[in-house]
């Protein structure tokens, strides 16, 4: 089955039920103009996405750029089926993995192995595949002796490695990824990068929410500038980024060198 993502006229709004809606309405309306509205029953809502349209086919690598609160993560979640449309339609075909929350379902009281097993079950893997998953993750995250100890006592570096290894251990057709994924400590970064690039190279459709110019230019074939829940611009990454940042963009020297030496360009495949 070929993968695809079709988003038609998608709008999402979050109702504000709790607290004093009236006074909240006044304060927020005066500060954030345009994002707040009242729905047909006079409830105060935050309009997180407004009339978003987009179609992605195999080979597409889309970057979502925009300021904080522009609706990037909400759009990722909507494409992952976590938020169902308030208006419009979302249709996704193909196996899907959404990397939105760095600690997705990770329970600090459980051991590393138990956390891995749980994730495997959430992913619908069978027993044998879960064993493979445990080996793969333990090797990558360098947990060795810690695998059977509670995650609570891990160092923060180990937790990051475990979360990252878990999230990147399954190869979906459609990968939705939030920008937190590109953060990490320097020593681990290079290893993580290789693994992530392998993963990205193997997916048919990538949607990436990111602020990192290098990553967007290197990996993506299309960019969407989100602003206050709307699509402000849609086009080639260099153009959209230039418009968004207000100055011309190009790959940093470091990234150019890296591409020249390793030939690593996850955007080319698909």
């Amino acid at each position, binding site marked *: *089955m070929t993968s695809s993502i079709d988003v038609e006229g998608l*709008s999402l709004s*979050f*109702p504000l*039920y709790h607290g004093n809606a009236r006074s909240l309405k006044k304060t927020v309306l005066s500060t954030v103009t345009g994002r707040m509205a009242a729905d047909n029953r006079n409830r105060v809502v935050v309009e997180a996405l407004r009339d978003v349209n987009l179609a992605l086919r195999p080979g597409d690598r889309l970057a979502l750029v925009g300021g904080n609160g522009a609706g990037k993560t909400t759009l990722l*979640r909507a494409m*992952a*089926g*976590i*938020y*169902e*449309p*308030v*208006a*419009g*339609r*979302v*249709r*996704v*075909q*193909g*196996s*899907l*993995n*959404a990397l*939105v*929350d760095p*600690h*997705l*379902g990770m*329970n600090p*009281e*459980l051991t590393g192995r*138990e956390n891995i097993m*749980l994730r495997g*079950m*959430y*992913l*619908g*893997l*069978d027993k044998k*595949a879960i064993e*493979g*998953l445990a080996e*793969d993750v333990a090797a*990558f995250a360098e947990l060795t002796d810690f695998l059977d100890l509670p995650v609570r006592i891990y160092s923060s570096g180990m937790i990051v490695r475990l979360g990252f290894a878990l999230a*990147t*251990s*399954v*190869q*979906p*057709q459609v990968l939705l990824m939030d920008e937190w994924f590109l953060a990490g400590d320097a020593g681990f970064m290079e290893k993580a990068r290789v693994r992530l690039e*392998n*993963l990205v*190279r*193997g*997916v*048919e459709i990538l949607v990436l929410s990111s602020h990192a110019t290098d990553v967007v230019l290197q990996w993506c074939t299309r960019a969407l500038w989100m602003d206050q829940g709307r699509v402000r611009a849609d086009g080639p990454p260099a153009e959209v980024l230039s418009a968004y940042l207000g100055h011309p963009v190009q790959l940093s020297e470091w990234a150019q060198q890296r591409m020249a030496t390793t030939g690593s360009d996850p955007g080319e*495949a*698909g």
Partner: protein
Amino acid sequence: MAPPMEGSSHLQPSENVVLDLAADQSWGERNRAAWRDVCDGLAQWRLVWTLAWLDIRLKYRGSVLGPFWLTISTGAMVAAMGILYAVLFRLELRDYIPYLGLSLVLWGFVGALVSDACGAFTTNQGMIRSVRMPFTLYAARIVVRNLIILGHNAVVVVVVNLVLWTWPPAGVAWLALPGMVLWLAVSLSLALLLGALCARLHDIPPIVANVMQMAFFLSAVIWKPEQLDDRQWMLALNPFFCLLEVVRGPLFGTPPSLLVVGCALGYSAVLFAITWLVFVRVRGRIAFWL
């Protein structure tokens, strides 16, 4: 197609997903989506079972007796309350203690289930907001977790019957099985309904806590229906009593009357209908409320 992986063994997700979500669905489409949620949730029984077991294991990790602390505290409660109330009500100990033991163990399940049900979705908000999973999964986790606890507490009932040798006749006791099946359906239904309502309206949990406290005293848990004399029929008005009795009656050797069974089935049908209407209506909105 993708080039081969270098040095990493990426796993393939087991099945293909076709996600088709639209706003302004017809009632029929919403019904099908809700039904799919229930079926998908129950199909994940292995995951439900694991999550429920981990909940218990986590709570008692590092403790020597583990979940059997539940058994011990229930046993101590039954012994203390049994003797106190037998004196207060002037009841015969050998008759009252098995009754109280059974009642407290079963009510322990009901009470814990209802209070857990209020947090069915709010306590899983991290999960719900990062991956699409059937909501029934979270509800079923609560039901199974409390079933496991009930299994541990059941030891108290067995011990009491062993000590006092007051086993119910086997011909009557098996009638508790259909009662348990009804309980499972009612529990799942309650977890879905209360979970959704409590996610939307934060005033519901305290109301539920109050209702459950009242229900404990009104549902003939610590006293016997016979003590109402000719006003026993009033108990049929209490859904908690009717549902409790369909399991407790047979296990105590007194099968419930047809009136009580009929009422239990009737109240359950009403609950199922309300749950279905609410769940079909709000399923797609729960993630927005957390």
